């Protein structure tokens, strides 16, 4: 049997064109001659691939035709400016400058006055760690065998909570301001070194990242509430005013924060030094704010930066480093009772210890 004849026979065999006896004979041949068997398999493979190539090229050709229908994506048009005479522009510019200067000046003077009269009443709630706590901590670190933070408990303390599975945390800027090094510690006593990756002084927020790049947590049980909530809504928080995580419950008492700060809420809740940076959640377990400070003149008046502002801040983080989707997962806290909610939440709330 020459090659051409063989290939023809293989083709007839594969195409089912052989009569039953021919087929039987060929099957016998195939079983007895491994070379022929291999040729059959190869023939099959070859044609399969040959046709796949044809289909793929046909698909590409069709897609080119479809693609031709798509208009080029419009580049953002450069704004058209109506030309006025040069003179009008100069006049307008001069007037605008004067107006700007005057209003800026007024604002500056007013703000200064307002600040002088009221800074005394605002106090942030980071914690200055005292000696008793130092010794407590020393005791604790003796039994803490997993991962140890330095024995020295640090100068200041606050709270932070996870905003991604890869070790990004948010806390208050004033907690970590001027820090030489930052450690965060969870309720199990595991400590991690962290670095500050983003700070926004005006809203008093900072984003920390756990220095260990391999850090991965379970998926976040809470999501970030985008819309502001209204006074009267019940809220709760978990923070570290001491070396143990502490739960607090209260309600939103005003839509604005200290001195009419629209980026914050006033919250009627008990906060203590150390609560700075703690998450504030509504009953459904959505994060609605971050505790920042309290009014020193009266108890139970605290302030929290709104989550909407935190979201804007996170949008400014480099997109390739920080994954926003972790905060958009299904909220796992909704519908649970408070005890269950806290049990889940506490794994994602950390104590911040600052050394400087």
């Amino acid at each position, binding site marked *: 049997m020459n090659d051409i004849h063989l*290939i023809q026979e293989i083709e007839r065999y594969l195409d089912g064109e052989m009569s039953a006896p021919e087929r039987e004979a060929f099957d016998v041949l195939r079983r007895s001659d491994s070379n022929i068997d291999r040729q059959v398999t*190869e023939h099959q493979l070859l044609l399969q691939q*040959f046709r796949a*190539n044809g*289909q793929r090229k046909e698909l590409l050709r*069709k*897609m080119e035709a479809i*693609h031709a229908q*798509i208009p080029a994506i419009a580049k953002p048009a450069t704004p058209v400016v109506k030309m006025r005479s040069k003179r009008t522009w100069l006049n307008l510019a001069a007037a605008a400058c004067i107006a700007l200067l005057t209003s800026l000046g007024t604002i500056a003077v007013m703000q200064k006055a307002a600040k002088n009269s009221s800074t005394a009443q605002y106090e942030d709630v980071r914690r200055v760690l005292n000696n008793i706590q130092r010794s407590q901590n020393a005791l604790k670190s003796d039994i803490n065998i997993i991962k140890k933070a330095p024995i020295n408990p640090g100068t200041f303390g606050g709270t932070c909570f996870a905003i991604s599975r890869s070790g990004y945390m948010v806390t208050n800027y004033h907690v970590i301001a001027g820090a030489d090094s930052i450690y965060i510690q969870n309720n199990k006593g595991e400590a991690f070194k962290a670095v500050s990756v983003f700070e926004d002084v005006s809203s008093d927020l900072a984003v920390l990242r756990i220095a260990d790049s391999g850090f991965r947590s379970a998926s976040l049980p809470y999501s970030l509430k985008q819309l502001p909530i209204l006074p009267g809504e019940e809220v709760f928080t978990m923070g570290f005013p001491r070396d143990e995580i502490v739960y607090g419950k209260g309600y939103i008492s005003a839509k604005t924060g200290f001195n009419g700060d629209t980026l914050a809420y006033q919250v009627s809740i008990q906060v203590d030094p150390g609560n700075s940076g703690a998450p504030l959640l509504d009953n459904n377990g959505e994060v609605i704010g971050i505790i920042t400070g309290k009014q020193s003149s009266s108890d139970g008046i605290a302030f929290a930066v709104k989550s909407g502002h935190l979201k804007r801040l996170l949008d400014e983080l480099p997109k390739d480093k920080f994954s926003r*989707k972790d905060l958009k997962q299904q909220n796992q806290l909704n519908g649970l009772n408070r005890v269950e909610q806290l049990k889940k939440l506490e794994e994602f709330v950390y104590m911040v210890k600052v050394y400087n």
Partner: protein
Amino acid sequence: MNIERDQELLQGLAMNDDKSLETIYLDNFPMVAKMILQNNGSEDDAKDIFQEAMIVLYEKVQEGNFILSSRLKTFLYAVCRRLWLKKLQGNALNGPIYEDLEEPPPVEETLEAQEEKDLLFSKMEASMGKIGEPCKTILEDYYIHRKSMLEIADRFGYTNAENAKNQKYKCLMRLKKLFFAQK
């Protein structure tokens, strides 16, 4: 929500229905273009990546065992995202591209399988480049366009179908040799 519609479109694609292909293409290209333009890519990059993903999808539905575990949009987005990341940074995944959709469906396996297919594709292309004419066209006419030997004999000026058939087998043997000689 639209999963029934997605499934219909995929069935259409499996049966080489041009309308389904067009609908899938036009529905999904803008989203991918947006993602790629936002991530240091050009329109041409977007077109290449998207068409690559469409090939993945097409060949999967052709195999007949593709089960859509998410919305079609999500699947295509995930494939394009992965392909684009790969193009941007070789094989190392440094960080996720900004993600607005739900958790992306796992596409790693699909894409690994696709790499093998791509390799076979280019092997075949190379072999076909080497067999020359009229072999290439004869084989394409017979095995892909399913023309009869008589038509082919006519087109290439063979005196009868039997001659054309012999020529076809010779061509096929050459292709086979070239294709399997490559490792």
